[in-house]
């Protein structure tokens, strides 16, 4: 019941700002697509393929990641710190685990929606990607993980400045360093360990392999499921603590 209520409320929010939501999530991937994909793409080859072809799965991972993270973190931090409307959940008979799951799901769905634009870019650029249920599952896991990170961050921050700092210090570097734009084989050794700890590295690799028609990597899938389960558990814990 709570999950449906939260999804309904988030749907009303998106419906009311549909064009703003849609256009704002198109800007960054379109810029990366034009500058890196179309500009540099013709001059560079990556892991034996054209750079444009290589870039699209990375853009898919990064766009769905950023939109699921931003949609949840912004909504929760505004509701919690500015509107204070988040406390309605606490004096109503809302089950805390469903509160966390509802918001994470809402964020994941926003992330999936932003992925539609990348699919459109892939189609018009002729980057023939191999679409499958496993690829969708990998993208969905990616959105779940980052919606959970967004939820957790927004629940822990005490001001909008803290939220902004977290995005700048953690999310932005992650979106560039985790193999979205380049192969991780070439990164310096001292960064490798750090990069492997980041969830986006695993989801990007998984999404890229599946996009190119490769087999499902069960260890990578397992790591992604583990990340999403642990982060969701942390979100639930934080809701009970709040």
């Amino acid at each position: 019941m709570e999950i449906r209520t939260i999804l309904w409320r988030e749907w009303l929010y998106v419906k009311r700002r549909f064009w703003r939501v849609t256009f704002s999530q198109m800007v960054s991937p379109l810029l990366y697509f034009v500058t890196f994909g179309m500009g540099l793409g013709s001059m560079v080859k990556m892991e034996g393929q054209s750079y444009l072809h290589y870039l699209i799965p990375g853009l898919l991972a990064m766009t769905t990641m950023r939109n699921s993270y931003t949609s949840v973190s912004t909504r929760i931090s505004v509701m919690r710190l500015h509107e204070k409307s988040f406390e309605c959940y606490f004096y109503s008979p809302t089950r805390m685990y469903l509160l966390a799951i509802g918001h994470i799901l809402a964020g994941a769905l926003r992330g999936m929606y932003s992925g539609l634009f990348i699919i459109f870019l892939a189609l018009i650029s002729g980057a023939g990607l191999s679409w499958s249920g496993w690829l969708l599952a990998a993208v969905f896991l990616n959105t779940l993980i980052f919606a959970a990170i967004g939820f957790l961050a927004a629940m822990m921050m005490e001001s909008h400045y803290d939220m902004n700092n977290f995005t700048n210090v953690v999310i932005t570097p992650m979106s560039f360093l985790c193999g979205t734009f380049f192969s991780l084989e070439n990164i310096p050794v001292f960064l490798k360990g750090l990069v492997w700890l980041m969830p986006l590295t695993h989801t990007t690799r998984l999404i890229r392999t599946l996009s190119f028609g490769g087999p499902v990597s069960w260890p990578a899938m397992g790591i992604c499921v583990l990340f999403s389960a642990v982060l969701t558990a942390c979100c639930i814990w934080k809701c009970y603590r709040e």
Partner: protein
Amino acid sequence: MIVCKSLKKSFGKVEAVKDVSMEVPDGTFLGLLGPNGAGKTTLIRMMTGLLIPDSGCVEFDGKAMDRNAMEVKRSIGVASQHINLDKELTVQENMEFTGRLYRMEKTEIRESSERLLDFLGLTSVKDRVVQKLSGGMKRKLMIARALIHDPQYLFLDEPTVGIDPKARRDIWEFLQAQHKKGKTILLTTHYIEEAQQLCNNVMLIDDGRIFREDSPEGLIAEIGAYKVEYYNADRMQTELFGDLASARERTAQLDCPCSVRPSTLEDVFFYYTSKEVGGWK
């Protein structure tokens, strides 16, 4: 009946609520009065489950809030001090959202919100987004939302702050009607006239402790039912008397402009306010 047993809450080194025990019988309209920082909001937040007490417990009809939170929360409605409506949603959507959180059926939500919005004069703006409402309308919506699930207990934390006198009167009228229906209402306010108009019981709180509890009439009688006011050396002086005859006798002795009037709850408030700025006696 609401029972609070030895409630304590600290924030760091600041003890906001110190060992508060109280009982609120069903059907009471209780006013919680005290200066800023007295602990009113902290106490209400503990009673409504928004804050976990450091020690002590709150019971509603014998059910402890901490062990029966889901059940207890269904029987309470809360209107916070700050406007915590979802500003992106319309009036009707805010009502529906709250109704859904209380697991009400769609028809129940529609009937209840129609009735409440009509009573509070919000029907004409039910499709308006909350951020486009006036302050008074937002306050009314907060109260309507708190009542959507028809709770037995209603907690109102300064519900009329920052609104015009007309809207305030409308809210008073509405709350009096709710009280007549048998609801138990707990109100904190800085408008002492509001407490005097509405409440049949008042608790005075300061420094995290409740130190007086009685009906408004009882509290007034305690300090003196009549007040003599006069100017002496360009300063307003006041004296309190238990009966009108004593007050009149005093005015006859004064050789300066003076007046006698019945004491109010506001006089009780100031009586217990220390002469120094800030705390209470």
